[in-house]
């Protein structure tokens, strides 16, 4: 057994492992076991914001059945949840509470921005009370565009997240946030200001690229 990130079980090729598995011998590494376990028991927070929350509920119902992915356990308390599905428009009035919920969730924790509004403010981005993307305050793992995304799209996003978790290394610079001491683990909750949230974005988390557009003819 080894937790060497580059070779799960040194000295044994994938073919040999497959052959052993056929014979009933399962070889694994701590890293594989760890990521396999955590990727199949992602418990979401029972937290709905807007329209996308209805599709999130629909995804947990009979037709789409999120239980097939091990994520049917919607926890009402952030202390018991692994995954924050930001399902809908985050208004500036709501943003501090979302950040607080995120801070209250224990590591390892993941965030899915579901729908256009959670990603960028979406169709409501022109509004004065709409936060242009929850990633201004908390790190987002998976973005699911759509307005609202179909429940299947949410499931697809969840599968992407599971793949991302399975790709985690336990040590080294590629290790996820919760296994690294040098990365921030709490995120300041923005304050209500006289005109806007203060600060309007968390510079540790969010840095927009620059895209210069020309004046229209």
């Amino acid at each position, binding site marked *: 057994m080894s937790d060497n990130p580059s070779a799960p079980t040194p000295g044994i090729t994938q073919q040999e492992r497959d052959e052993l598995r056929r014979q009933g011998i399962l070889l694994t590494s701590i890293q594989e076991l760890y990521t396999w376990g955590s990727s199949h028991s992602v418990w979401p927070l029972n937290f709905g914001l807007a329209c996308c929350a209805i599709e999130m509920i629909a995804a947990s119902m009979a037709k789409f059945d999120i239980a097939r992915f091990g994520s049917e356990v919607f926890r009402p308390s952030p202390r018991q949840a692994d995954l924050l599905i930001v399902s809908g428009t985050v208004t*500036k*009035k709501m943003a501090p509470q979302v950040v607080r919920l995120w801070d209250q969730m224990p590591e390892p924790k993941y965030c899915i921005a579901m729908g256009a509004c959670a990603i*960028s403010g979406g169709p409501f981005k*022109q509004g*004065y*009370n709409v936060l*242009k993307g929850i990633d201004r305050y908390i790190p987002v793992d998976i973005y699911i565009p759509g307005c609202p995304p179909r429940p299947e799209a949410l499931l697809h996003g969840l599968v992407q997240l599971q793949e991302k978790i399975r790709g985690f290394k336990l040590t080294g610079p590629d290790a996820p946030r919760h296994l690294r001491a040098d990365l921030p683990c709490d995120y300041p909750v923005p304050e*209500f*200001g*006289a*005109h*806007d949230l203060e600060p*309007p*974005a968390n510079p540790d988390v969010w840095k*927009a*690229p*620059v*895209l*210069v*557009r*020309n*004046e*229209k*003819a």
Partner: protein
Amino acid sequence: METPEQIRDRLLARFPGAEISVVANPAPAAQHSLLLGHAPAVEIARFLRDDPTLKLDQCSNVTGIDWPEKEIVETTKSTVPDPAGGPPKVVETKIKRIQPGYLEVVYHLYSIALGHGPVILRLRTGNRTDAVTVPSLTPVWRACEFQEREVFDLFGVVLTGHPDLRRILMWDAFKDFPMRRDYVAPDDYEWEPTPHGDVLEKAKRHYPVPPAAAPVAPAAQEAPKA
């Protein structure tokens, strides 16, 4: 149901000296409204609610409208007889006039008991800065309670007599009145990949200053215009 004119006449007979006028609505719906003065507005509202022929027991919709100050150019045509004896000349005189701005609160009243409506009431503030009070009609219709708070929150109309006038949709520390037409939203246009119009103007403030010296920049900006 009575026409707004009939209601006005009846109200004037009941409340002599009250300022009541009919505001015509040119749209095909022709939902004309009654503009009320401040003084007996609450009593008028109570009368409309209790009057047996109107019985406007439901206040369905309360909303604010912002009418900023605007410049109106009035063109008047006058015919001046030609002193030389020729055909009279038409002279156009243009008068510029500043129409003062005001905030307006509109109430849509219906009668559940008699099944008619709407009777529309309008209340106007003196201006948009310091005389922004109108009387609240919440004592007459509880339905106004949250909607009037919303008018206060978004338009900044102070409704006197409201039992609990606080901000309702925005947070308490918020200072602006966002539904007013001169409201300036906070600048969060850092990432605008598809800007045009106003958004482009706002996004441009976040564009990096070109490293090249000034002479190059105008040329670069002019190129797409050509």
